[in-house]
């Protein structure tokens, strides 16, 4: 489904240059839910940006669903990719209402022409849809998204990213800005949606426990390299205690 092949990526800013990936390869089967952990600056977000086309590799290729998308601009790749960002304000339009945001998302993959965007008849179905998230959005359909809580906003962003058919869901620490209770709730919703829609997903998380509890494959990154790749049985048997020593070591090496 997803393949990164021999990726090299260096960021240059003035005289400074940061080599994030030297020769990075990863392939992910369809239907797999991959969790990714790693120290700060290990390249997790960059990996997601490379997948989505937000950042272009210096060398190497990106394949989505067997197609070489390396040269495809970001917005074109998003036709078949959904993404939820760490920042709750990134995935939704703050001054549009919940219903308006959802109407936009439901039309993804189709033309944004001169037909009515939000017929009143569509509201009932939408209300039911957001009620399924269980975060109380059904009573706030006409409220601008900017006035929602972070948890509600991320849940909406998740729904918007997954409400049309996609090949891949990309989650970048999407629970990081929430308090523990709401983060846990959003994680449960995420897992349910990924399972129900049988999505292929890549989830970067700062929380080792989430990486262990959710997903069917776990990747640990350190300075642009894969230091742990557990799948199937091995992943199922992993506990946070198994990960902690390794994670602690790479974190300390990075000075955090």
């Amino acid at each position: 489904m997803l393949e990164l092949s021999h990726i090299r990526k260096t960021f240059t800013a003035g005289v400074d240059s940061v080599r994030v990936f030297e020769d990075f390869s990863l392939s992910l089967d369809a239907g797999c839910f991959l969790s990714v952990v790693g120290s700060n600056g290990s390249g997790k977000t960059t990996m997601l940006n490379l997948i989505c086309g937000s950042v272009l590799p210096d060398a190497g290729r990106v394949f989505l669903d067997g197609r070489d998308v390396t040269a495809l601009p970001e917005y074109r790749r998003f036709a078949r990719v959904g993404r939820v960002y760490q920042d709750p304000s990134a995935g939704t339009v703050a001054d549009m209402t919940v219903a308006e945001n959802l109407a936009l998302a439901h039309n993804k993959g189709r033309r944004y022409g001169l037909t009515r965007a939000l017929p009143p008849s569509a509201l009932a179905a939408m209300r039911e849809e957001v009620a399924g998230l269980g975060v109380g959005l059904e009573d706030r359909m006409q409220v601008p998204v900017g006035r929602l809580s972070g948890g509600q906003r991320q849940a909406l962003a998740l729904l918007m990213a997954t409400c049309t058919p996609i090949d891949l869901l990309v989650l970048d620490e999407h629970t990081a800005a929430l308090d523990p209770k709401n983060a846990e709730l959003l994680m449960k919703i995420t897992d349910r949606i990924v399972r129900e829609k049988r999505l292929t997903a890549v989830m970067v998380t700062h929380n080792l426990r989430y990486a262990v509890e959710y997903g069917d494959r776990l990747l640990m990154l350190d300075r642009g390299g894969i230091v742990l790749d557990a799948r199937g049985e091995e992943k199922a048997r992993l506990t946070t205690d198994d990960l902690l020593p390794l994670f602690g070591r790479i974190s300390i090496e990075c000075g955090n």
Partner: protein
Amino acid sequence: MLFLNTALEGLRLGLCYAVLAMALYVSYTILDFPDLSVEGNFPLGGVIGTIALYRLGLPPLLAVLLSFLSGALCGALMGLLHVKCRISKLLSGIIVMTGLISVTLALTQLLSRGLTVVYFNYIPNGVRGFFNAPFTAGFSSSAKTLYGVAVLLVFALAVKLLLDLFFATKAGFLLRAAGGNEQTVRTLGQDPGRIKMLGLMLSGGLVGVSGCLYAQMRLQYDNTSGAGKVVIALVAVIMGLSLFGRIPRVRPTTAVALGAILYSLALCFFTLIDRGGIYLKLFNAAFFAAVLILGENRLKFHTGWLKTLFSGKKRGGEKEETTDA
């Protein structure tokens, strides 16, 4: 009588500027694009419309349509500079505005050699615009003004209704999203640059229309008519939105149009005092500063009663949405 006449003058001017204000609502409020090309685009609409009426003998409505197209072209050009060439918003506008000075001057040569002001009444065969013969043949002076108000009201209303309809469509939603959060537009699989271009073309086209109506209404095309129009439009938008924007059921298009009318009334009454027109620009500048200073804070506060009046709720009994979890 003087009062009534001045009020009618102000209303007529205000309806003309209402179209301009709605154009800037699209570029400035929706797309966060303070479009300085207005100063060149506005007279361009005027000169294109005048050429269409006078040289090509086209009906006035076609002249308006042509000025929309010329304005849309300017919007597209500015959009290209900003989106494709990554020139900042302000500078893209300044570049287009500067270039347009020569374009309008060259086009004016088609109307009358060497002059920068063209008076419709002095043109031998007459310019058949909306506001002169044969449409107004036999009208008294105040009947002409009333007729002008009526025609411009039709235009302003048409633009308002079309914009409202547009903003209820999928394309309109996407335009709002492009102004609010470009990345969201990208994750919807759409190119935000393209959407912005479309928005700037729409806005530019409306600026052209406003310029064309302005020239027709004043029965003269003036090459310098663009000067200060950005400020006028921005005052109308900002004042309109802060005074009327929060009243339930009043759409932003209506709010900015009302802002334009209010401001034009103020302008017209000011010219009663300032006969020579020397202090007009100073008045504009001071008014703009006042609107910016008061706009965000105090006007909203002072118009709380307006809100409550229109929403039918008791004062202080408004329920604000809270950010609960």
